[in-house]
């Protein structure tokens, strides 16, 4: 067998090993290659950055064990971004597992905050916990908070939370941030909160769902959208707060480059072989 045939019939195990190296190396040693910011992410970031200090935002955390590695870092940055800007956050989740991951994101963000940033539970942020009922549950929450939930994630009665004093429906919020993961729930936010109360909204979903929501962006119902780990990485990049997502996005870079190199190599070898008249 000539070397050409050997290369064309490359043992797949060699490809697998190369792939592992390409993906694991950037995670262990984050090398930040330049990256182009996607239009949707830039829009979402600009919108978040324009939320004025002192306003209150509604925040849905919809990440679960499978999607947290992709969206979690971005969600942490979003919480960090809001708190450092002095924006108050009202969080909730529409899934029981997601509920716990939302709390993880809050804690991670609080650990990262520069010393002295006001971030008191109940004053600067509140986590309302799990809201049952899917889309209907969201609708009921934004129309009458007290009728939907009686206590927050930690069991504190709603009436004892200073942040929610005098707030009982969505009119108090100046933005909706919907980190939907793979829940496909962004539509709930658009239909139940953004459109009826005329509140601008951005969000996040996994990469494969981005095309499903792009109609909302072109229609102006969503201000922007972070897609998957790349969206999270772009948020970290834009806020100059390097975190795990950047390393992961770089790993997709290396993996993608390897894939493209292999395809090019395969084609070049194939053409050489064909020109020699062997194929």
């Amino acid at each position, binding site marked *: 067998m000539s070397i050409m045939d050997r290369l064309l019939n490359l043992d797949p195990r060699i490809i697998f090993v190369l792939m592992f190296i390409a993906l694991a190396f950037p995670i262990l040693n984050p090398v930040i290659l330049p*990256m*182009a910011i996607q239009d949707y992410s830039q829009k979402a970031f600009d919108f978040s950055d324009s939320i004025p200090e002192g306003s209150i935002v509604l925040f849905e955390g919809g990440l679960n064990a499978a999607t947290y590695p992709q969206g979690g870092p971005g969600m942490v940055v979003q919480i960090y971004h809001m708190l450092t800007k002095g924006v108050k956050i009202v969080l909730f989740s529409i899934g029981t597992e997601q509920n716990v991951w939302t709390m993880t994101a809050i804690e991670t963000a609080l650990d990262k905050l520069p010393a002295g940033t006001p971030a008191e539970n109940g004053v600067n942020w509140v986590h309302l916990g799990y809201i049952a009922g899917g889309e209907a549950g969201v609708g009921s929450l934004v129309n009458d908070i007290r009728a939907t939930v009686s206590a927050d994630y930690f069991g504190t009665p709603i009436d004892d939370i200073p942040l929610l004093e005098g707030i009982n429906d969505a009119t108090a919020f100046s933005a909706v941030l919907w980190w939907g993961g793979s829940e496909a729930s962004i539509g709930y936010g658009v239909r139940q909160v953004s459109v009826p109360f005329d509140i601008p909204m951005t969000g996040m979903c996994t*990469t494969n769902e981005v095309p499903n929501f792009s109609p909302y962006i072109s229609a102006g119902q969503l201000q922007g959208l972070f897609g998957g780990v790349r969206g999270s*990485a772009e948020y970290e990049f834009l806020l100059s707060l390097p975190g795990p997502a950047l390393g992961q996005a770089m790993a997709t870079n290396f993996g*993608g480059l390897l894939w493209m190199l*292999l395809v090019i*190599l395969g*084609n070049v070898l*194939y053409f050489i072989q064909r020109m020699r008249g062997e194929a």
Partner: protein
Amino acid sequence: MSDRVYKIQLPIFLTALLGILMVLEHFFPMPDVVTNFNITTRSFVTIVSAAALMLGIIFLTIAHVRTISQKKSEWYYSIFFIVSLLITIGLGLIGIRNESFLWIYNNMTAPIGAALYSLTAFYITSAAYRVFRARNWSAAVLLVCGFIVLMMLIPIGAIIFPPVVPIGEWIRSFPSSAGFRGMIMGTSLGIMGLGVRVFTGRQKEHLGIREERAGGE
């Protein structure tokens, strides 16, 4: 043959009846009785399906026990199966909210599942190396579209070759959507054709009945 009625004709008739009822319920306002009946039958389906799964596991276990008792080749692997099956069933029967049961699920089943799902990334690459060669025009179309879209999606792609983003977006939004639209419409017609064939009793392989022509048995 008289038992033909309940062995073959009645099942086909019932399939058609239930199916047509489902279709009608969608287009015409129906009395609540019909809707409730539909909801109940649907819950029956999930129950029967759950029972069938349990039956399947029993059969699988029998197959493994047979492998061990007959000392077929590589029989020792089956021991791993039996032991882990018994441990999980034991814990699960104590209660599916039991902590050890959930621990096994979260820390063993979920990671293997995620790892196996992610195997696709490796096979997708090794398959691409083998099949993404411009052997003929159709392979070339596949190759070019796939290449451009991947390049658009990885962060560094736009740095290497900036026009890739608008080109990729265009391919994804127009020719590619057009292709899928035609395919989806075709599929939908396929389903309707299948429905008619099943409801008229021409296609009945799913009932375990091999075709007998009109006049048959």
